[in-house]
């Protein structure tokens, strides 16, 4: 799992790559702590490089979204691929969160 967070306008973009599983979910959550400590309240997840996610990782999206909603913001999902996209969909994440094909499209919805 690799994550890097960058400011793009009034939002943050978190680019997540590799595997977020039971073992690496804690590192994923830690990697987001910086994003949550900032004043931006919108966070776009660029998932184009995410290869695998399990429920321990999905949980982090839910808790992160709750924290940002409490500030008046939210998360957006972008560019989930293949089996990862299927997992998000089956988990109902595409009704909870907007999912766009690209990071740019996701940023444009904010």
């Amino acid at each position, binding site marked *: 799992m690799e994550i890097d967070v960058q400011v793009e306008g009034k939002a943050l973009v978190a680019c997540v790559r590799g595997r977020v*599983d*039971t*073992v690496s979910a804690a590192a994923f959550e830690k990697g987001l702590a910086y994003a949550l400590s900032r004043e931006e309240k919108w966070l776009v997840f660029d998932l184009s490089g995410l290869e*695998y996610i*399990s*429920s*321990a990782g*999905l*949980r982090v999206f*839910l*808790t992160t*979204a*709750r924290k940002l*909603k409490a500030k008046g913001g939210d998360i957006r999902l972008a560019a989930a691929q*293949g*089996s990862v996209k*299927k*997992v998000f969909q*089956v*988990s*109902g994440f595409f*009704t*909870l969160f907007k999912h766009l094909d690209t990071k740019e499209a996701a940023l444009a919805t904010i």
Partner: protein
Amino acid sequence: MQRSDPPGGAVFIELPARLENLQAFIAPVLAVARALPLGEERCSNLELALEESLVNICNYAYPDRDGTVRISSRPEQDRLIVGIEDNGIAFSLVEAAVPDLSVDLPDRKIGGLGVHLVRSLMDEVRYRREADRNLLELVLFFHDAEVST
């Protein structure tokens, strides 16, 4: 290489039910699956279903003692069956309640996705309690476009 043997794959593993053994359970079963006409996306679904069910056994099946998990896997004619056995507390993954996924974020349960994912991503999930053992079976049918006969 002149000809191919049948893919040939079978797994039986019994190990302590501990998260540090996750990959030792999952890697051989996935290697069996990858040699079968299932396709990469369904192998990835299997990996996820294995992780979710094994993590739950490690976390919940033995609340007050150590215990083991047995995993076994072998292709049948038209399907791959993966058996997962423990002798922890009775738990039916088939009947367990799953969270309501239609509610909005404030009311949405944070947990409970693991069981839901296993049931959604496998073609068939069977459970029975036999003596003091939980016997879970995950089934994937071969119906990928790449089937080679």
